[in-house]
């Protein structure tokens, strides 16, 4: 268990700034996910926490102790890489015990720690097997065993499931989270897969261009994105945006989208000019014949229980998640109803959300 604090951490490689002044705190026992596209600085941030890179500026604190200048081996942290490498000539027991053997732990103690780690991962029946004959999942568990056997203060994981089948990934997500809870660990996990992040995290930090765009619980980030980037990065399919050309006023509960009246949460800011984007999630869109907001159906993707219907309007494209039983004709014109309490309005030029009754709630409002 550990608390990890990152204060104004920046990292420059030559002329390229990979991380631009990042701040966050990972609480004791928390599962913290850094989510972002490739090149957003998430791996560099993690490597600095591990001690594999030195920050250009800023501080890193582990349980209150400044470890910024300490080498990786002097930090009590385990790093799990994207590709699990096992020693093929060793059996499961030797693979898991290897880090302890390297540190010259007494034999009896290694034996005890390895068996304990194996029990936690439910691979204690495999201890004397060679790793060559194991299934993919069991190999993954052995690699995890090697990380947890030292009982480090924190686990850092860099897309450990990236190379797996989607189905198997889902299973391992559940297992990793369960393992984290069972050993009372503090974990930082890096991924570009928003579903992994949503499924596992207590807290998500969304990174973009070397900065943290937003920090919050999965549901908060999903329901109240602070920027168009976050709104667009999270959700499958992501949030849709409609152009809004009239500047909103403080106290407005209605905005006009191409002559159609759309109710939304009360706005808390006056704007005199600019371009705006109304953001709506697919599950908050439904068809309503009477609505003035109209569009043409250009696509329907069947997903079993639900379907994703794409509609073009005069103000942009919109996706609706509807029950599959609803019959939808390509080319037909439909009226659209948007769930009022779940709409966000963004400033199109800065990409930031406008404060409103929806976005003022919660700790990050």
């Amino acid at each position, binding site marked *: 268990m550990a608390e990890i604090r990152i204060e104004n951490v920046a990292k420059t490689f030559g002329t390229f700034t990979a991380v631009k002044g990042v701040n966050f705190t990972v609480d004791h026992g928390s599962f913290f996910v850094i989510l972002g596209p490739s090149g957003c600085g998430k791996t560099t941030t993690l490597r600095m926490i591990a001690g594999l890179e030195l920050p250009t500026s800023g501080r890193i604190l582990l349980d209150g102790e400044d470890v910024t200048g300490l080498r990786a081996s002097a930090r009590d942290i385990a790093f799990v890489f994207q590709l699990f490498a096992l020693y093929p000539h060793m059996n499961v027991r030797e693979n898991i015990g290897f880090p302890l053997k390297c540190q010259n732990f007494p034999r009896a103690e290694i034996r005890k720690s390895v068996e304990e780690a194996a029990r936690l991962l439910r691979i204690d029946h495999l201890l004397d097997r060679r790793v060559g004959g194991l299934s993919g999942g069991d190999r993954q568990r052995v690699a995890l065993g090697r990380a947890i056997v030292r009982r480090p203060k924190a686990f850092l994981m860099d897309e450990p499931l990236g190379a797996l089948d989607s189905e198997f990934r889902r299973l391992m997500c559940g297992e990793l989270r369960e393992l984290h809870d069972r050993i009372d660990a503090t974990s930082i996990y890096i991924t570009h897969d928003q579903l992994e992040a949503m499924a596992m995290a207590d807290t998500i930090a969304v990174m973009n261009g070397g900065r943290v765009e937003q920090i919050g619980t999965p549901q908060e980030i999903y329901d109240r994105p602070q920027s168009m980037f976050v709104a667009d990065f999270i959700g499958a*399919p*992501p949030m849709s945006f409609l152009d809004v050309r009239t500047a909103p006023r403080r106290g407005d509960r209605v905005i006009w989208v191409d002559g159609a009246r759309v109710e939304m949460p009360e706005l808390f800011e006056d704007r005199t000019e600019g371009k705006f984007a109304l953001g709506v999630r697919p*599950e908050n869109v439904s068809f309503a014949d009477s609505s003035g907001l109209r569009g043409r159906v250009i696509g329907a993707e069947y997903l079993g229980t639900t379907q994703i219907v794409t509609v073009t309007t005069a103000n942009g494209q919109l996706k609706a998640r509807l029950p599959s039983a609803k019959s939808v004709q390509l080319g037909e014109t439909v009226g659209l109803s948007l769930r009022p309490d779940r709409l966000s309005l963004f400033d199109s030029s800065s990409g930031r959300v406008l404060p409103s009754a929806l976005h003022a709630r919660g700790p990050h409002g």
Partner: protein
Amino acid sequence: MAEVALLDVSKRFGAVEAVRGLSLSIADGEFVVLLGPTGAGKTTTLRLIAGLERPETGRVMIRGRDVTKEVPAERDVAFVFQQYSLYPHLTVYDNLAFPLRSPARRMDEDFIRRRVQQVAELLHIEQKLANRATALSGGEMQRVAIGRALVREPAVYLMDEPLSSLDAKLRTELRLELKRIQRELGTTILYVTHDQIEAMTMADRIGVMNEGVLIQQGTPREIYEQPASAYVASRLGTPVINLIPAELVGGTATPPQARTAGLRTEHIRIFAGERPGPRARVHWVEHLGDQNHVHLKLDAHSLVTLADPAQDLKAGDEVSLEFAAPLYFDQAGNRIGNGGTPA
């Protein structure tokens, strides 16, 4: 006429039967997706069509011609691999033009220019033609890789998980584009994936494979609503279909041979109040953003369903369940009865 037909094809590697007695026919302009886990024999099937592997038994037909013994170059196919392999020292334009300049084809440069331009527009990379291939983002590189197959007009495009190395957002975008391009050009595609969303959203027809065998083929809706077996049923749908002992469902509609009932979200109705019928407890609600999963405990069994946004359920809630037209499977896991067929 079928563009590609596999007739009772088998292929083994040592002791492993990678493909067993597989028959599949792909019509002109059809988008067929082979779906299955790692090791199901999907890639081997593609390689057999491409001529990169020879079958032990069976025949491979392309446009009505028996190509079983032909080398890859003689077959009229284009292959897109999982990892984009571009020529790093060439521009995007030259990468796209490369297949047309091969000595076997030799087309005049005017034609090549028109064709490359056309494909680049289709893939929205026309602004990048002069760039070096290495100066592109991952998504652009994969577009170029797909484009390099598209410049040719083969009988069939064979695609082996071409989107799996991309991040989730790009994958979603390219999925839609690939389907659009296929529809616009009327091309014939055999596409291999383990991702059910890709299969459901792109395929005209899905073939579900496991352990070298093609278990079922049909439209996405057919496979989803009328799976041949419990195995197929569990391949499609999120959350995964719930399989519970048939007697727990109750009611009179349960066929006598039924051992297992398959319940998806659309088969389960949850009522907050007390009602006759099965009772369950809400174990937890998993927030996945748009997809909130409700985990229910029904006796010793867990059920996972998609949360209804209008219904506010919390962990610990006692609820009543009603099951509407579930799927039934017999001892061997094969589907029986008419459950799941749309009303």
